């Protein structure tokens, strides 16, 4: 019984399984196209996935608390537009102020979501479906020229910064991109909050049993406002990362990222019904998604197939989760007897 418990515990932990799957996947893809497992490619994946990763951290927190937020890409788009235009208009600012301003704007918009969720106890899907339309619609009604192709240089300069640069055998210079570093910093922050603060415990508590959380004395209002403003904050940060990476401001591109972010979070083991989720898992989920899309490109699969594959991946990974859950229940029953 001892041995069985240990192995089953391992199998039931999502993150190790995901990691193994990633390794196997990488090996298979690499055998088809050896350009996959190269340092250049790996670091490139790390870099391009940072935007999704940043938003995924926010989505993870919402899901742990048992809710869902589909307005975060709208929040990101609005933050991006407002911040970049504003700083350009007053002709001041640098990358740091951009990040801070966008984060603030995002957090404020997130507060609106938090207000509706807490004050009226509305279903989170409905609230964020509504605010997504409101935020995005307002933005586009107000903007005359939605695209901005000329932005100050400090955005792009930031994305070109990197830590630990080195030169590969092939002569290219690669390093840990600043965007990735920013993601790691945020991931660390989130991990610290979840593991060491009562706020973090409160997030898990609400997701596990909100009635019990109320009775235990958690400040539900504070926690929920934090949750929804946090995802707004990360969305704001992610939007500036977008500008840094792509050198333009776009009204629609970030909106299309929503499903990939959610897919990454779910792939990473965060339960949709709430109560569980880890930072490591979410990061792995993000990298897995990007590994998949990257490998599709390397294997020459036409880009139209990407949403199909991602759709399958979501369904497949949730299906496995659902099965694991029911396996766990039967195991508990047996132990009980």
């Amino acid at each position, binding site marked *: 019984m001892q041995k069985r418990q240990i192995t089953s515990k391992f199998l039931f932990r999502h993150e190790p399984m995901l990691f193994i799957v990633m390794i196997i996947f990488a090996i298979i893809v690499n055998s088809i196209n050896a350009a996959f497992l190269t340092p250049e490619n790996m670091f490139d994946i790390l870099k391009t996935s940072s935007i999704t990763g940043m938003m995924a951290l926010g989505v993870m927190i919402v899901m742990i608390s*048992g*809710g*869902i937020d589909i307005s975060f890409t709208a929040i990101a788009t609005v933050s991006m537009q407002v911040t970049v235009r504003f700083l350009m208009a007053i002709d001041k600012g640098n990358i740091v102020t951009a990040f801070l301003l966008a984060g603030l704007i995002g957090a404020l918009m997130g507060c609106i979501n938090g207000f*509706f*969720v807490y004050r*009226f*106890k*509305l*279903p*989170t*899907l*409905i*609230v964020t*479906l*509504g*605010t*997504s*339309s*409101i935020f*995005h*619609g*307002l*933005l*586009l*009604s107000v903007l005359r020229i939605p695209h901005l192709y000329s932005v100050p240089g400090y955005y792009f300069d930031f994305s070109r910064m990197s830590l630990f640069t080195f030169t590969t055998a092939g002569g290219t210079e690669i390093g840990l991109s600043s965007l990735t570093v920013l993601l790691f910093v945020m991931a660390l922050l989130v991990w610290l909050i979840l593991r060491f603060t009562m706020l973090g415990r409160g997030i898990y508590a*609400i997701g596990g*049993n*909100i*009635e019990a959380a*109320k009775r235990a004395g958690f400040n539900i209002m504070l926690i929920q406002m934090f949750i929804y403003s946090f995802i707004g904050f990360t969305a704001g940060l992610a939007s500036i990362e977008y500008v840094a990476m792509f050198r333009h401001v776009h009204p629609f591109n970030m909106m299309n990222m929503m*499903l990939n972010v*959610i*897919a990454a979070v*779910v792939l990473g083991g965060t339960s*949709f*019904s709430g109560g569980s989720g880890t930072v490591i898992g979410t990061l792995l989920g993000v990298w897995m998604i990007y590994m998949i899309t990257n490998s599709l490109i390397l294997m020459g699969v*036409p880009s*139209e*197939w*990407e*949403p*199909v*594959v*991602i*759709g*399958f991946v*979501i*369904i497949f990974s*949730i*299906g496995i989760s*659902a099965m694991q859950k*029911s396996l766990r229940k039967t195991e508990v029953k047996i132990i009980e007897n």
Partner: protein
Amino acid sequence: MKTEHRRINIRTTNSELNQSLAYFALFIFVFALMAILQPRRFFSGTNLQQLAFQIPEFGILAIGMMVAMISGGIDLSIITTANLAGITSAIVMLTLSHRGTMDLNALLQGIMADESTRQALQEAMPTGIAMIGIVAVTVLTALAVGMLCGLFNGFLVAKVRITPILATLGTMKLYEGIALVITKGSPLTGFPDEFIFLGSGTMLGIPTPMVIFILAIIGLAIMLRKTPLGRGIYAVGENPLAARYSGLDNSKILLKTYATTGLMSGLAALVMMARVDSIKVGYGNSFQLQSILVVILGGVSTVGGTGNIIGVVFSVLILRVISSGFNIMGFSNYMRNVIWGSLLIVVAIVISSGFSFAKSKKQKQQKIQGAAPQK
């Protein structure tokens, strides 16, 4: 103790009648409002005609969504299902209509956009019985594809036990992806006149799509109220555990629920395609939020188990009248989205605070108990 039930002879209960009257009143109110604000343009022939032709495609989608929501779930993939159904049936129709005169790839690359080519090809299409047969096959294809997509949704929800939000979020992307792979984003157009009739013709003065819509409403109404499946859907939505304990087959019911929603999506696709003589990935995207709004406004609880088709139909009418008002007043698409989004939240708030004046003391007391956050 003999109870006085015999006095109630009408088919619906008192409260249902009250509810329907309330919706009717709201509809008249909105209609009147529009009429007062812009009498000339609102009552113009073109506007009313537009309304009559546009209401059905949205309405059919909405009543499909309603079925999924009554069962306690939701279907976020109705638009992409409709698109996929429309695209596949369009391909079937065009291939059959232009057999021998051109190949599929050219079609997909938008050859129809060229006026002269289109003229020539359209003249070469079969007519009469042959064409009617082709249209019939097209209709069946759209309905079948819609149902298949719905069945897959149902399978994920009922057998694999994925929550409806996630499952249909995934399939939404999946179906869109498949449609993109097939069409690479280009529109399909150049449909035969016999098919266009479904979207732009009239039968005895009533626009064909409206006839289709009315038939769909009647069909679903009968299904929901008067068949075991319909009652089963309400039961599963209200309390799936009790449904199981009462001997109902939850899996089968859910499969059929989502299949029905998919069927409606397929039907809506046909109407849409026929009205604008084309189909493309992305058509109808703005209907996503509105369909949920209309179902909630129509009285279906966000957790399922209750709801009436009459409420939803009136809500469809109300929303379309408002939308027509937007047209007249020149609101941009984006502004409309803002309003729909705001309405969704406002309606949800009003409904969740429960029309307190209508509830009894005991119900209010039960509300005090409180509940966990819903998705």
